[in-house]
C-alpha cells in the first residue's frame, strides 16, 4: 500500500511538471541546513537537505492542493526499523531519513457561500503566535521543537471541513475522523524532552530503547471536531469549540528497565506518550488601536492532563541494573489559557511584535512542576534593510515562574529571487524541567541555504 502511495507521488510530480503551464500552479523549495552545536555534551546533528513541492490547480469551483515535503533529515540519529519513507500519522516516533510527508493534500469545492474540503489539512485557528490556545485541530511535531516555526510543527490531519460564509459572518466546521498522534523525538535525539534523564547515563555505553505509545484505536470514537464562528469588522472576532484528543504531549510513567544486553547497557526509560480527550471553548479577537495591531484569545479546557515533577516519577538517583516501577505521574485538571499580542511598527521596515500569555491550572496539586500560573512573554523585532534584501529577526522569550529564557537571532540575505542564505543562533537558559531550560544544551548556530521557485 505504501509503495503504491510512493508511486502515485512520483507519477503526480511528473504530471505536475508536464501540465504545469495549462492546468497547475507548481512551486517548490530546496533547503540545505547545517547545525553547529555550541555545547560539547549535546547531541550532534548532520546536515539536512529538504525539499518542498506545492501544487495547486488553477482557480475553479473544484480545486486540488498538495504540499509535499521530503529529503534527508540530519536530526535523525538512528535508523528505525519498519518505519516507512512516507510518514503517516500512525506513530509517535517517526524519526526516519530520507522521508516524504504530505503536509497538505486535499480537494475542495467552493461556491460564493460554501467551501468544502476533504483530505489532509492544517488549520490556523486563534490569533496568537507560537501558542495559539484555540489552535487544537492539528497535533504538533516536537522532533525539532522550538527550532521550527509554528506552522512547520503542525502535522496535517485527514479531515472534512466546511465553511459557510454570509456577508461578514463565517462558520467553520471540521471533522477529523482519524486519530493522529503528536510526534516526539527519540530519547537519543537532539530535541528530546528526556535529555536530562538521558544525561545521567552519559558516561556509560548505553543503548536507549523507546517503546511506541499505545495509540487510541482508529475508529470514529477517537476522532475530533471543531466549530468556529467568525465575524469581521472594526473588531474581528471568533468563538471556537473543540472536542478531541489533547494535541499537547503528556508522558505516562510505567517502569524503568536497565539491563545488560550484548555488552551494552540497555535502558528503557518507561515514559510513554499518553493521550487523553479534552474539550475546549474559546474566544479570540483582533483589532487596531492607533498604531497598534492588537490580538487576544482565551480558551477554557476541560479535562487536560499535566505531568508531575520529574523528581517524583521514581527514577533512581544512581542507576543500576534492575526494573524500577515508576510512580503515577499524570494529573487531570481544567485549565484556562489566555494571552494578548501586539504589533507595532517602530519605523519603516522595522516591526516589533510582543505577546504575553498565561496558563492557569485550576486544580493544581503540589506534585506538579508547573505553577498554578505559568506565564510566557515573547518579543520579536524584525528589521528589513536594502528593500528587504537583508532581514534580521531578534527573538526572545521569558518564563518568569521558572526563570527560563530563550534568545534567538537570525540574519538572512536574499541573493536573488531564487536564492536566500541565512544564519540563526539560539540559546536557552533555565532549570532543567522548565520549557526553555530543558533544551539548555541545545544552544546552536544554524546555517541555511534556500532555493525556491
Amino acid at each position, binding site marked *: 500500500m505504501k509503495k503504491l502511495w510512493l508511486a502515485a507521488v512520483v507519477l503526480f510530480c511528473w504530471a505536475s511538471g508536464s501540465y504545469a503551464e495549462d492546468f497547475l500552479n507548481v*512551486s*517548490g*523549495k530546496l533547503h540545505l541546513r547545517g547545525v553547529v552545536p555550541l555545547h560539547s555534551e549535546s547531541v550532534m546533528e548532520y546536515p539536512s537537505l529538504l525539499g518542498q513541492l506545492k501544487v495547486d490547480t488553477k*482557480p475553479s469551483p473544484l*480545486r486540488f492542493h498538495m504540499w509535499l515535503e521530503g529529503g534527508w533529515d540530519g536530526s535523525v540519529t538512528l535508523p528505525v526499523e519498519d518505519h516507512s519513507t512516507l510518514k503517516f500519522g500512525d506513530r509517535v516516533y517517526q524519526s526516519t531519513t530520507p522521508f516524504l510527508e504530505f503536509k497538505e493534500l486535499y480537494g475542495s469545492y467552493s461556491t*460564493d*457561500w460554501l*467551501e468544502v474540503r476533504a483530505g489532509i489539512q*492544517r488549520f*490556523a485557528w486563534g*490569533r496568537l*503566535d507560537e501558542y495559539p490556545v484555540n489552535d487544537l485541530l492539528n497535533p504538533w511535531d516536537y522532533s525539532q521543537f522550538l527550532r521550527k*516555526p*509554528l*506552522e512547520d510543527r503542525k502535522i496535517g490531519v485527514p479531515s472534512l471541513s466546511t*465553511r459557510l*460564509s454570509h*456577508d461578514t459572518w*463565517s462558520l467553520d466546521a471540521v471533522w477529523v475522523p482519524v486519530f493522529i498522534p503528536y510526534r516526539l523525538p527519540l530519547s537519543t535525539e537532539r530535541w528530546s524532552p528526556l535529555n536530562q534523564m538521558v544525561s545521567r547515563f552519559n558516561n556509560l555505553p548505553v543503548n536507549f530503547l523507546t517503546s511506541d505509545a499505545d495509540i487510541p484505536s482508529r475508529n470514529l470514537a477517537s476522532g475530533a471536531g471543531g466549530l468556529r464562528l467568525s465575524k*469581521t*469588522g*472594526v473588531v*474581528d472576532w471568533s468563538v471556537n469549540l473543540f472536542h478531541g484528543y489533547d494535541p499537547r504531549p503528556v508522558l505516562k510513567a510505567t517502569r524503568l528497565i536497565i539491563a545488560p544486553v550484548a555488552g551494552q547497557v540497555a535502558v528503557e526509560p518507561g515514559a510513554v506518550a499518553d493521550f487523553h480527550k479534552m474539550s475546549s471553548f474559546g474566544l479570540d479577537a*483582533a*483589532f*487596531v*488601536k*492607533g*498604531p*497598534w*495591531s492588537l*490580538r487576544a484569545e482565551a480558551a477554557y479546557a476541560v479535562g487536560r492532563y499535566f505531568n508531575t515533577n520529574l523528581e517524583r516519577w521514581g527514577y533512581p538517583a544512581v542507576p543500576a541494573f534492575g526494573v524500577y516501577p515508576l510512580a503515577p505521574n499524570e494529573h487531570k485538571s481544567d485549565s484556562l489559557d489566555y494571552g494578548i499580542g501586539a*504589533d507595532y*511598527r517602530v519605523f*519603516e*521596515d522595522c516591526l516589533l511584535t510582543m505577546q504575553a500569555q498565561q496558563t492557569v491550572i485550576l486544580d493544581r496539586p503540589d506534585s506538579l512542576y508547573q505553577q498554578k500560573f505559568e506565564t510566557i512573554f515573547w518579543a520579536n523585532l524584525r528589521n*528589513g534593510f*536594502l*528593500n*528587504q*534584501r537583508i532581514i534580521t529577526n531578534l527573538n526572545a522569550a521569558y518564563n518568569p515562574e521558572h526563570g527560563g529564557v530563550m534568545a534567538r537571532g537570525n540574519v538572512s540575505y*536574499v541573493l*536573488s*529571487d*531564487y536564492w*536566500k542564505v541565512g544564519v540563526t543562533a539560539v540559546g536557552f537558559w533555565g532549570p532543567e524541567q522548565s520549557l526553555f531550560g530543558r533544551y539548555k544544551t541545545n544552544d546552536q548556530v544554524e546555517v541555511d541555504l534556500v532555493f*525556491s*521557485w
Partner: protein
Amino acid sequence: MTDKRILLLLLAAFLLVPALADAMSGREIFEKMHEVRLRMLNQKTEATMVLYDRGGGKRIRTLTQYSKNAAPEAYKVLLIFNSPADLKNVGFLAHARTFSDRSLWAYFPEFKRIRRIPTSAQDDSFFGSDFSYDDFSGPPNLDDYAFKVLREETVDDRPCYVVEVSPKIPRKYSKYITWVVKNLWITAKVEFYREKELYRLGAFRDIRLVDGLPTPFTLEMQNVKSGHRTVVTVNKVSYRTSFPDELFTQRALERGGR
C-alpha cells in the same frame, strides 16, 4: 448703453468664460481626479513590479490587483503576489467604509495567519517596494487635504496642473506636489516631501485609454534618499468588472484570490 457697447461686453464675456473655467481650484482638480478614480475602481490589473537597488541589483515580483466600488462602503481592494516563490499568495485586503475610514489586512501563507494593519502604516513601504500601501488603495477623502494650484507645466508633452496637497490629518509626509494631466485627470508625476525635504519621487508614463479611462502602464517610484526605485509595469488591465463581494473577504485573501 449703445448696442455696440453691449455687443463688446458680450464678446468680452464670451472670451473670458473659458479662461475663468480654466482657472480651476486645487479642490476642483482633485474632484475631477476623484471621479476618474471612482470609475477606475471596478477593475482587475495584472502587473510586474521590479525593485532596483542602488547597486543595480533587481528583484522581480508579479501581482494581481482586484478592486470594487462598494457603495455604501467606499471601495474594496484585494492584491495578491503571484511570484517570486517566497511572496506567492501573500496578499493585502482593504475595506474602506468611507474614504477616510478603512480596515487593512495582510496574509502571510507561511504562518497561515491574517494580520490587521493599522491605518497609520498606510504610508509605509508596500512589501519592500518604494510604493506605499496607500498607493495601492482607492481614492482619498478630499476633506482630509488642503489644495493649492502652484502653476501649469508640461510633462511628457502633456499640459498639467501642478497642485500642492497638504494633509490636515497626521501622515508620514508633510505635503506632496502632483502634476495632474489636464482633461485626463490623472497624475503624471508626484513628489512627496517630509518637511521641506523631497524623499519620494514618482512618474506615471505610457498613458493609454482603456475602456475610455486614462491608464498609466508604467509607474515608477523612487526613494530619493536611498536611491532605490520600483517600477510597476501593467501587463493587463480590465475595467467595468463586477466581482462578487466574496472576492474581497478574508477567506479569499487566504486563498490567494481564488
